[in-house]
């Protein structure tokens, strides 16, 4: 990587982080929405821990994994919206008119997303401490949670970039939120898959990759170091990221036709 490429990606990443941090309406849902849902679920669904086969006595420790996925969903919307706004305002063309390489345009944005993803994961870990979640894997586990959180935000955000590049419309990107959010409810977010007794729901949750991401985070809170759950979680995150980046590359070809 040439120094100039590092400089360019660094400059764009810095701008991406600044842009998000300076928009309170983007920060608010990232922090408060998962916090409120966690508190509601933890108090309302606590009785689920009494079910035979439920893996822990602390529903907060069980449910906090969902916060990381919700945060990544918000990253998807925020990243897509910001990129779409850049296209709408012509800022994207301004960047395209510089000697910036095609790959740097998105790399800068996504490096910023990864940094924000790590920051929001750290916030959720602290939130968990406040509401009484127990991180069984300890400090090392917290670091893994941050890495997985960042990777998940990055993977989801790449799909936000695809939506932005294809539609060029921030409203269209925001309209995708319910579509992505429904995947959380069709997963093992509220109960372990082994306790999902409705056949169709169990099947959907088993095929839904979000289940394995949630179980990756959850394993660190409940079981400590569960190699299988972590491998599946990281595998899904990396797989989604690869798919997302391939789709970004395809969408970029049609959006950016510069010679």
């Amino acid at each position, binding site marked *: 990587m040439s120094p*100039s490429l590092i*400089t*360019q990606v*660094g*400059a*764009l990443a810095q*701008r991406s982080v*600044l*842009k998000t941090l*300076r*928009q309170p309406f983007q920060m608010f849902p990232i922090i408060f929405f998962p916090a409120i849902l966690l508190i509601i679920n933890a108090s309302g669904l606590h009785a689920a821990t009494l079910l035979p086969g439920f893996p822990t006595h602390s529903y907060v420790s069980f449910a906090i994994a969902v916060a990381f996925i919700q945060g990544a969903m918000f990253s998807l919307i925020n990243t897509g919206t910001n990129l779409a706004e*850049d296209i709408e*305002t*012509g*800022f994207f*063309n*301004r*960047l*395209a*008119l*510089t*000697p*910036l390489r095609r790959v740097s345009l998105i790399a800068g944005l996504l490096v910023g997303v990864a940094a924000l993803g790590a920051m929001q994961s750290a916030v959720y870990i602290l939130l968990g401490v406040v509401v009484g979640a127990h991180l069984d894997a300890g400090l090392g586990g917290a670091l893994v949670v941050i890495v997985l959180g960042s990777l998940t935000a990055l993977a989801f955000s790449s799909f936000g970039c695809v939506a932005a590049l*294809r539609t*060029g419309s921030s409203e269209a990107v925001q309209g995708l939120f319910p579509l992505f959010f429904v995947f959380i409810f069709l997963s093992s977010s509220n109960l372990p898959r082994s306790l999902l007794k409705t056949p169709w729901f169990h099947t959907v949750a088993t095929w839904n990759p979000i289940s394995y991401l949630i179980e990756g985070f959850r394993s660190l809170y409940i079981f400590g170091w569960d190699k299988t759950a972590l491998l599946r979680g990281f595998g899904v995150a990396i797989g989604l990221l690869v798919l997302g980046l391939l789709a970004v590359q395809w969408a970029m070809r*049609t*959006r*950016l*036709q*510069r*010679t």
Partner: protein
Amino acid sequence: MAEKNDNGIEVEGLVRDFKGGVRAVDGIDLRVAPGEIYGFLGPNGAGKSTTSLILTTLLPPTAGSARVAGLDVVHHGPEVRRVIGASLQDSALDPFLTGSEHMRLQSSLHGLAKPQREARGRELLAQVGLTEAAERKVGGYSGGMKRRLDLALALVHRPRLLFLDEPTTGLDPQSRAALWDEVRRLSVDGVTVFLTTQYLEEADALANRVGIIDHGRIVAEGTPAELKAAIGRPSVEAVPHDPGERERLAAVLARFGESAAAASNGVAVRLPRGAGDLAEIVRAIDAESLQVADLRLHSPTLDDVFLAKTGRSLEGAAEDDDADEAAPEPLSA
């Protein structure tokens, strides 16, 4: 390949088609000399912005060729981008960044060395009168401030050619005049300016030469004076104080030239010998003891040129073609 000191633009048979059979640019030929301010004038939807996008390498042409600074825009896109600056339609700025942050970002992306970035940013912000607003977020800037910052950003890497697309749209007269001064100064410094505009006054005031585009084709080209001279002489229009004297007034003016279009209560004639007849006309009116409420000399305008070449007024055409201006985006190409 490029001649190193060639800051000009050469375009031959340029065509750009979009999906649905829309031909936005239809065989344009033009040449812009180094250091020249070339006004590209036309109504909305005429193909101005599409041409600008092609010349700035953001959109490949369907056919034809274009060389900017001696470099083919299709085969040498990255090299072209290094030598051009562009301020495209609307101010493409991030409302959440400050003026200084914009300058730093742009300098970094253009590869300026770190010590140069701050200095160049300060220099350009001072040049466009934004020093005091440098640390404010751009979301709070006025339209004129945004346009000036936009121009400063286009100049970060000292481009040899500058593309300005509708640079003064929405600006108040004072901001417009300030931006015109800056463009003139750049031209004096040797920067070639390709100025896309729909404002006649702007093209007239700034451009050394003007190309008038309509429906993707150049319909007239030359200096503003040449274009205006080509379509005729000035006209004089008089409005009688007493409407009943209109016929007598018309008879007096008819001695000086053939009838021309006038306001409903006035009389106008085209002056074949130019404005020199004006004093004689005043004396003739006085000699007939006619009182006039208004007397005006009309010089031909670029709008008259557009009217003569297309059969439509430029301002009327702008309204007609507003719906077309949604210049098809690259995605739909």
